[in-house]
């Protein structure tokens, strides 16, 4: 068994956490943080930050977000796993239950006032699992390291891997703003690296 390097775990967990954050409805705080971090950050964060519009375009960004991920008409890029997995527009079904069960097994309560298979929840959950892996490796709890690696692999196989690429493609296709277009692209790029990670 291999123990991942701290920097790898850090990079992955940060990316998940960051992407999770990016799918929330944008507000002033969100944008200003990106704007203020343009120069200081690196990697994925800096790439996203560079696509962030100035604060005064917040409402355009909000509009684009709503069109892509909320409605009120047809969501252009539905952010729910079940939409892709079950091949129909029903929001709660077995894949959703499976997601919920996994969250609950970790003792997590969903605060997000939205479906459990929302992209932000699934991404943050992966972030959580990596953090657990990291903590276990810091404590040399090898058993838990293995457990949390397996949990990541399972969650990846059963959920994220099955829909994030289609989801990202839809964002790229339908987004009007540079920010979300870029987010779609970077999502795709990041998950390609995840495919490599999980295959290795």
């Amino acid at each position, binding site marked *: 068994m291999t123990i991942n390097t*701290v920097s790898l*775990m*850090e990079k992955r*967990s*940060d*990316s998940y*956490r*960051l992407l*999770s*954050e990016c799918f*929330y*409805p944008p507000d002033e705080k*969100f944008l200003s*943080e*990106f704007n*203020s*971090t343009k120069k*200081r*950050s*690196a*990697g994925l*964060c800096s790439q996203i930050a560079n696509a962030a519009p100035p604060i005064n375009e917040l409402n355009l960004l909000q509009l684009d977000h709503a069109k892509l991920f909320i409605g009120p008409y047809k969501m252009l890029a539905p952010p729910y796993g079940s939409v892709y997995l079950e091949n129909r527009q029903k929001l709660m079904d077995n894949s959703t*239950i499976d997601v*919920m*069960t996994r*969250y*609950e*097994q970790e*003792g*997590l*309560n*969903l*605060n*997000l*006032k*939205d479906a459990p298979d*929302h992209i*932000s*929840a699934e991404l*943050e*959950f992966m972030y*959580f699992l*990596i*953090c657990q892996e*990291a*903590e276990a490796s*810091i*404590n040399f709890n090898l058993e838990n390291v293995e457990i949390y690696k397996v949990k990541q692999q399972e969650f990846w196989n059963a959920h994220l891997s099955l829909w994030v690429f289609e989801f990202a493609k839809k964002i790229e296709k339908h987004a009007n703003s540079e920010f979300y277009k870029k987010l779609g692209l970077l999502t795709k790029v990041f998950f390609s690296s995840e495919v490599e990670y999980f295959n290795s």
Partner: protein
Amino acid sequence: METDETQTNVKRRGILKASAIAVAGLGIASLKLKAFSKSDDKITTPTGEWRSTTCQGCTSWCSVQVHVENGRATKVRGNPDSKVNLGSCCPRSHFSLQQVYDPDRLKSPMKRTNPKKGRNEDPGYVPISWDEALNTIADKIMDLRNNNETHKYLLMRGRYSYMRDIIYDRMTKIIGSPNNISHSAICAEAEKFGPFYTEGLWDYRQYDVLNSNYVLLWGADPLAANRQVSYYNSVWGDVIDRATVAVVDPRLSSSAAKADEWMPIKPGQDGALAVAMAHVILTEGLWYKDFVGNFDENSPIKNFEKGKPIPEEFATADTKGTTFNEKYTSGLIKWWNLELKDKTPEWAARKTGLSAEQIKKVAIGFGKAAPHAICWMGGGPAMQVRGSYASMAVHALNGLVGSVDNVGGTLKANKEYTGKFPSPDDFMDEIAKAGKKHKKIDNRGTAAFPSLKKGKPGSGVVTNNAADGILSENPNEIKVAIGYMNNFAFSCPQPERWEKALSKIPFLVDITTHASESTWFADIVLPSTHHMFEKWGYVKSHANGYRHVTLLEPVIKPLWDVKMDETEVPWLLAEKLAQKGFDNLLNHYKTYKDPETGKAPTNEKEFALYSLKYATQKLWDPAQYQAGDRFSGWQEFAKKGVWNSAPYPYKKRWGNMKTKTHQFEFYSETLKVALEKHADKYSTSVDDILDMCKYQAKGEMAFIPHYEEPFFWGKEGAFPFALVDYKSRLNREGRSANCSWYQELKDTDPGDEAYSDVAKFNPLDAKKIGINNGDKIKLISKTGSLECTAKLWEGVRPGTIAKCYGQGHWAYGKIASKVYGKAPRGGNNNDVIPADYDRLSGATAFYGTARVKVQKI
């Protein structure tokens, strides 16, 4: 998307540096969650598990288990670990599935947008956040405090658990009001009056039916309603094998249908039957000598003879002494002389409409079964305008046959060891102390409302009279009121008084699972958890010679953002009050520490759990073990969900009862003290007080069990039928009519019809007035009317109409109401029952009170 942010720090290690990324921020060293929060008290479960909780569909309070599958509740069963309900549960508990998943449940706090209030004013509710709702309520309470008028705050309680004191007592006191009004007096207080003023027990009894040879039910229907329905259903097949069962009830109840003897008495005449039975038991020499005692061997009089008074003392040539030497009772001869000597079965036959032969047969059968004979009193004989004395008369029979506290008799509750919450005294400031001193809004303790709970005048609630207090601003106006899980605008007789009273209150809050009739008049509505599935709490209940303390547990995660009525809501309100500068309540609540860790609660969720652990510590903490079931700790207790007491210690109270004489009192010295105390307070006589309170007793009669004529509203000529109200075996505290199963199974109440609300007539009466099956009719009383359907049924006494309570909701969801907010499905019995009282106990009169006439629609 709304989110809460919580942060859990994971142990830092030197090798890990915080990440440089600004937004994602903190790296792995410190786990920061947004879409999730980490919970230590894991509520959700793996697939398919039975989880313990409590059913409060009626006051049986059975310990039950819910089958939870992927976080979904799918089935209910009795908790096999309870020695009280023995793993069985009645049909009500299953209905709870349709309550917790009722689409009409409130999912969000809401506020009224229509400033006008009234039955015909749609409140125009819109959803608001918890924050806004709580801020609004806290502002209103702060206004009261700032103006030194905290006594204008009112808390109304309906169905409760023993977490009640947090919101009902402590919160009211610390805010500074005397006005916490419970629903108890529309429940059964008069039923406790008789046992208290004979044996010093203000409580419901348990009945040792499996050891009994005679079970006489007085308006009680244990197979259908109250108390411990599940237990009595589970053993009744054996009970009727060994005991003679007789049922006193004007209608053929579920229990009467399986009894040896049905005694379809005229409504309100129970007292006549009771004293005539006592007369027979005495004249036949059937009293239980080991308990009551016997005539002195030297006394020239050695038996009770019809019409003959008995001198209390005797003197012969050789000796003198007490005629009758009582053992564990007191006042038998006075009772005989004052009341019983002329109360023959023939006399009672004229009053009750029963045959003298049947009365005699039952009295003799009952007496011969002594001491294993039970008089089981339900609400019927007691919840009447003059019910206190019938309550005493019925219970006194248990004294005559020595079944009180005896094998096969009537028992009190076993000892349990739950504890009180911390005292509020140190947290009541001057405003609170001053406010608390005001008189209560229900007028208890005024001359015409003695309310003699536990021997103390003015100590019992007069629930239904609070509406009049609010309307007449007597003793003062109410400006801010909070109600929780109560629906007085439906459940109290003459509910239109409550509609007006609730409309009058400038700021009304309702905490409820469903928008109900009372909600219709509220300004702010807070969505409550369902007690059986989503709440922490505990209740106590007794039967089968045991008492259990059973936990209410959150066995599923609520679908919506609802809060626990008795714990989370007051905590959140306390937080808001603290933000606004008044932190006494929050500081008080912070003293409810987790007994395991010593930690003070920091949020509403911790508070709910810690306060429960605090109150039940002696049951689960092995270091504080007292008696009964033993646990290794909180975890085990919570998993089992129920603690059982030690078995019942029979006869321990003989000679040691909580009465003035410490004996079972046939002449109640205890009542004498209480009544005289009350009369003295108003510098008048007991006779005068009783007259004011509509009783007939004069002089010494006031202190003994005796017969009083029923007090009916309406003369027989104008209102030919006496209404026989009763409770459905499917009622979940009057809130199950919105379950489709309730409507579909309504015919499990004998004589009733599925999907209908029927008034049942004896076919002879129906023929006389030309009513047919299925006719739409209106019942009209002196105070109101209702619409329902006619049903001809032989199980009803001629001259009466029997109708089940539970239907007639005009604002309780899509099924219970024909049109929500506008038209009821069926009729509410309370619409024809006048608001009147058994004033000695404070109880509302439901039975033997209303007369009605009938109109075809």
